[in-house]
Each structure stands twice: as structure tokens, then as C-alpha cells.
């Protein structure tokens, strides 16, 4: 009896799951497999049918292309720096918003605005603001006397990667802040009262109590943002185009696929990017002993 009940339950579970699995297989599984297969062929854009299997030639091509390795370095550097800054800023903003301020709801909504603007739009907007001659950023800095001549925010190799990261931080911080704030708000108040009674310093409370308690939620937020950052495309493409000093792996893959019409090479680059993202996600999820549901094991 027990067994049949369990069996029936399993059947019900599967019948609910099947539609989603089918949809996933169609919209995620099939394109992924096809991309991986194309990566081993010499397919050109527009003649996928006539392509031939060429083994690892595309990957050898990637491995010997300094522009590709520059893109890999750019992407990883971009992801590490921007996610670190976003996490720290997001935490600070969340802690501030968690106190009992007047008009907290309004501030919370205002903080979300950068996240709500489509990246292409905000990147284009920042592109204008960062223009060296008629941009508002240089106008303000010159007016305040911080700089003595206009800086080329989007042309100088070092400044342009810094600008791209800054724009991403502007956009990504609200996301981190909101997820952190959600975690902060469900923390039991008694712990803090107990800490106050014991006379523990606020700094110690933060590191010994708050941080460990919100760690699972924080890790989920970091994983989401990192996956986003590793496949970054729009903000970089809009601000600096195909410029190799800022191009990410996705920008490189797009250029191979569309501009050069090398379906095979582009697919190989996209597959490589997928592997890096998958490896990263596995490492973080295992190392953080983390369930993506947000509960520590």
C-alpha cells in the first residue's frame, strides 16, 4: 500500500514536471547541444547544412588567438572586480535601508531604478555622459577642479575597462542590495537583543552574528551576479564595441559568429564560455555547501 502510494505520488510529480522538462529541453537543451556540435565543424553563417566535421581545429584556433585570451582575461577580471564591489556596496546599502529610517519605502524604490532600466539604454546613456568633450562627467570634474583636462573615459585602455566596470556596478548594486536586504529582514530580533544585553560591540555583532546568518542568501546573490557578469555583453558592446582591450568572451563570440560568419569558431567560443560558467557555478555551489533555494545544509 505504502509503495503504491509513493509510486502514485512519484507519478503525479513527474506529470507536473514533464511539461517543464520538455520546454527546457526544447529552448535550452537543444540550442546548447547544437552549439556544442557546431563548435566541432567549419560551419559558416548561413550554410550550417553544408558544414564538415573538423575535430578540435576551432579550439586550437581559439587557443592560439591572443585576442581570445585577452577576452578571457577581460571577462574574468571584469566579473571578479565588479561583483566584489557590488557585493560590498550592496551590503552597505542594505544595512542602511534595514534601519528604521523615515521614507524607507521610497528610498528602497529609488535604489531599484538602475536595475529596472534596460542595460542597452543605460549603457548608451552613460556613453553620452562619459563623452570626453560634451559629457557631463568631465564637465563636473573639470568644474570642481578635480582634473585639469578632459579624460577620455571610453578610449584610454585602462580608463575604458574602469568605466565599463563602474557602469556595471551602478546597475548591479541594487540587485545585491535588495537580495541582502531581504535576508536581513527575516533575521530574528531576539539575537540582537541578546547581543545588546551582553554588551557586544556593533562591529562584532556584524561579523559574528549578521554575516554568518545572511551568508547563504548572500552567496546565492553572488552566484547570480557572477553568472551574469561572466557572460557580459551589452554594457561592453555598447560602450566600447569590439575594442580588444575591453572585449569580453561574449563580444568575441558574437564577432566570430556574425561579423566573420564563422559559425563553427563562434560556437566553439560560446561553448568554452559555457564550460567556464558551469565550472565556476559548480565550484561556488559545492564550496559554499549551498542549496540554490537559499538554505544552508
Amino acid at each position, binding site marked *: 500500500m505504502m509503495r503504491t502510494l509513493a509510486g502514485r505520488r512519484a507519478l503525479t510529480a513527474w506529470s507536473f514536471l514533464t511539461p517543464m522538462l520538455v520546454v527546457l529541453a526544447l529552448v535550452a537543451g537543444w540550442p546548447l547541444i547544437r552549439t556544442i556540435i557546431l563548435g566541432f565543424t567549419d560551419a559558416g553563417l548561413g550554410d550550417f547544412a553544408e558544414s564538415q566535421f573538423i575535430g578540435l581545429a576551432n579550439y586550437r584556433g581559439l587557443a592560439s588567438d591572443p585576442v581570445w585570451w585577452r577576452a578571457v582575461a577581460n571577462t574574468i577580471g571584469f566579473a571578479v572586480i565588479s561583483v566584489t564591489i557590488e557585493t560590498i556596496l550592496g551590503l552597505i546599502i542594505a544595512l542602511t535601508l534595514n534601519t528604521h529610517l523615515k521614507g524607507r519605502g521610497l528610498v528602497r524604490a529609488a535604489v531599484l531604478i538602475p536595475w529596472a532600466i534596460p542595460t542597452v539604454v543605460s549603457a*548608451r546613456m552613460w556613453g553620452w555622459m562619459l*563623452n*570626453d568633450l560634451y559629457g557631463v562627467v568631465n564637465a563636473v570634474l573639470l568644474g570642481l577642479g578635480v582634473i585639469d583636462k578632459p579624460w577620455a573615459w571610453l578610449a584610454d585602455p585602462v580608463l575604458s575597462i574602469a568605466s565599463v566596470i563602474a557602469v556595471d556596478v551602478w546597475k548591479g548594486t541594487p540587485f545585491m542590495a535588495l537580495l541582502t536586504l531581504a535576508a536581513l529582514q527575516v533575521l530574528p530580533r531576539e539575537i540582537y537583543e541578546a547581543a545588546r544585553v551582553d554588551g557586544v560591540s556593533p562591529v562584532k555583532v556584524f561579523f559574528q552574528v549578521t554575516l554568518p546568518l545572511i551568508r547563504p542568501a548572500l552567496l546565492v546573490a553572488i552566484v547570480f551576479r557572477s553568472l551574469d557578469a561572466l557572460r557580459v555583453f551589452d554594457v561592453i558592446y*555598447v560602450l*566600447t564595441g569590439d*575594442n580588444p582591450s575591453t572585449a569580453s568572451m561574449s563580444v568575441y563570440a558574437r564577432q566570430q559568429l556574425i561579423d*566573420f560568419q564563422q559559425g563553427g569558431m563562434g560556437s566553439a567560443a560560446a561553448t568554452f564560455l559555457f564550460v567556464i560558467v558551469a565550472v565556476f557555478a559548480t565550484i561556488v555551489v559545492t564550496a559554499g555547501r549551498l542549496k540554490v533555494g537559499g538554505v544552508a545544509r
Partner: protein
Amino acid sequence: MLRTASLIVASLTLCAAFTSNAQAKVTVSISCSSLGIEMELCRDGAQAWAKQTGNEVKLVSTPADAQERLALYQSLLASKSDKVDVFQIDVVWPGILARQFLDLNQFIEPGKQDGYFQTLIANNTVDGKLVAVPWFVDAGMLYYRKDLLDKYGLKAPETWADLETAAKKVMEGEKGIEGYVWQGRAYEGLVCNALEWIVSNGGGGLLDNAGKATFNNPQATAAIDRAKTWIGTISPQGVLGYDEEQARGAFQSGKAVFMRNWPYAWALVNAPDSPIKDKVGVVPLPKGDGDKAVHTGTLGGQSLAVSKYSAHPKEAVDLILYLAGSEEEKRRAVKGAFNPSLKSVYNEPELKNDAFFSTFSKILESIATRPATVAGKGYNQFSSQFVRAVHATLQGQSTAEDNFSSIRTSWK
């Protein structure tokens, strides 16, 4: 044009279908660029043809960004779709798309082809096949501030050295102004600029007819090295991130004395709300030194092609010959400053007495072409390697000669 602005994706939107005659025979669909007023002009032209022939036309709108438009065309043509009969294509695309288009030689007798500029017909001919009919032509030009040059007693520059001297003189006298803005971002626009520097300095073209690289010669590398010296002196460092619109933004807001740009900027810098309206002049780009130095401009522009998969090729060809005919080209020139691809149209009174068009027809005599037809499908790859080398030189990473030597030498 060559803007790399990544605009929000516009997929196939059937814009409008016009019924002009109850006894319409067939429906021809045409995809035009939607940049600026191009769509409006294209619609009016196609509509007039429909009225005249009793057919119907359907307009298919496309992304304003040329690179996105190419991607859309490629996927449409790859699926052998008959949804679009006539394609508006950029001057560098014939080599890439040749296999998907009809050979127009069978429809247009050679005598009629002679009416178009020879460079354009040659550019659109791939392996003896006429891929597209030239529609309008673009070339890089030098825009300058008449008022500022007058104030300092200067003339429009004849050589690059003149331009440097003039820019420096105005920059010394005026506050907060840059000398020369152009397109220095690492993209197709920089190929156009670099080609102009090289050809104007007598450095020759980029590839020969066999697809061999010809640009690593002293005149060519000297031209790029000269441009390097502009950065931080007469050109702002930010110019290395500029495309057409950013250069125009700087120039039109009165922050630059000279600008290199395409003809489209002419109507805009003279628009009623432009701060520099009526203060701008236009001349051919300066030349370098050496015996072979010439005034030149990189060839741009658009052509019309007919899809191999079209269900109504005859009507489609008829439509493009109407659109690229002298009446329609004149109308487009007067209304939108689109430069005709037919030589005879420049002799029409409306154009002949206009300083802009007469300057332009002078540039056409020694126009510089990008090696798109020779390199064919490999053109974008060539362009990317070339751009990388030029951009690195401008950023001060080694000399032009060094950077050029890293480019593949054979492109056939």
C-alpha cells in the same frame, strides 16, 4: 551608415502595404535602411513605382545599425526566404552576400551600366557577376568652421600639414576647443579614416587584385604615424573611442574646428537647431606629401540587389532600376542630400549650382575603395585585423610598421 550603435533589436516588421491600383499584378517587398529619413524616401519612391506599374510594394523595416542589418539579411537569405525581393546593401557587402543575389548583367544592358560611376559598378561586380545596382554614394569629407578660420585669417587646408597648423592656431586663440575630430574607435569607421590617410599620402590601396596586402610601405606607415601625432595635440584622446555620431556631437556643439565625416552630417550641422548653422564649410580631405599624394575620400554608399529566391525577379529588377533612375536619384539628392550614383544627375541645375554637390563630385574623381570585393567573405576579418593594428598604433603601442607586420598578408 556605419554606426555601430547597438540599437534595440528591430526584427522584421511589415511596415505598410500600399494598394495603388485595383488590378495590381504582383507584390514586391523591399527592405530599406531605416536610418534618418531613408525609410521615408524609400517608401515614397517605391510607392511612385507601384502607381506607375500597377504593382504593389511592401516595405520591410530593418535595424538602423548596419552590422545588425547584415546579420538579419544573412539569416533571411540563409533560410532561402522569398519574403524579401529587394535588399538595400552597404558598399562592403557584395562580396559577402554575392552568392545569394541574382546576376543583374542579364537584365541591364552594358550601355546602361555606363551611366553609373565605374568605381561603383566595379565594386558591385563579384567574379564577373553584377550583384547590385548602385543607389547612392558616400565619401569621407572635411567639415570646417568657416567663422573660426576667417577670424584667424586661415584658408581651408590643402594638406595635412596645413590642417595641423590651422588647428593649432585656432586652439591657441580659442578656449576649450579641439582641433580635429574623426572616427578613431576600433570599428569599420577607422578603416575608412585610415584608408584616406594612406591613399592621400600616396601609400596606395590596402589589397591588390590578388588579395595580397599592399599597405606595409613607407608612405602608408608614415600616414598612420602622422595620425598618431594628432592624438593629444590637435585631436582629443577620446577620439580613439569616437564613431560618426560622437564626432558630429563634438563638432556640432562647437567643440572642434575640423571634422571628418560622411555627407549625412551636412544636413544635420545646418539644421535650424544646430548651434553652428551656416558657420560650416566642406572641402575634400587634405592630402599628404610626396608625388602621389591626392585628395581622396573613402567610398561608402548603398546599392540595391535582388534575392535569388525572389518569386518576382522581373518586377523586382524593374523596381530597383526605377529607384536608381535619374528622376528618383535627383529627388533623393534634393530632399535628403543623398549623392546620386548616376553621373548625369550632377549636371542637373538643382545640383550643379549647389556647392555641396560640386565639392562632392570632385571627391568622386579620386575616391578610395575598401578591398571588400577582393576579400569577399573574409573582408570583415581583414577589417578587424587592420583596425586592431591601426588602433594599437594610435594608442602608442609600437609603430605602424610593426603593427602592420602582424596582419595576415594574403586575403583571397
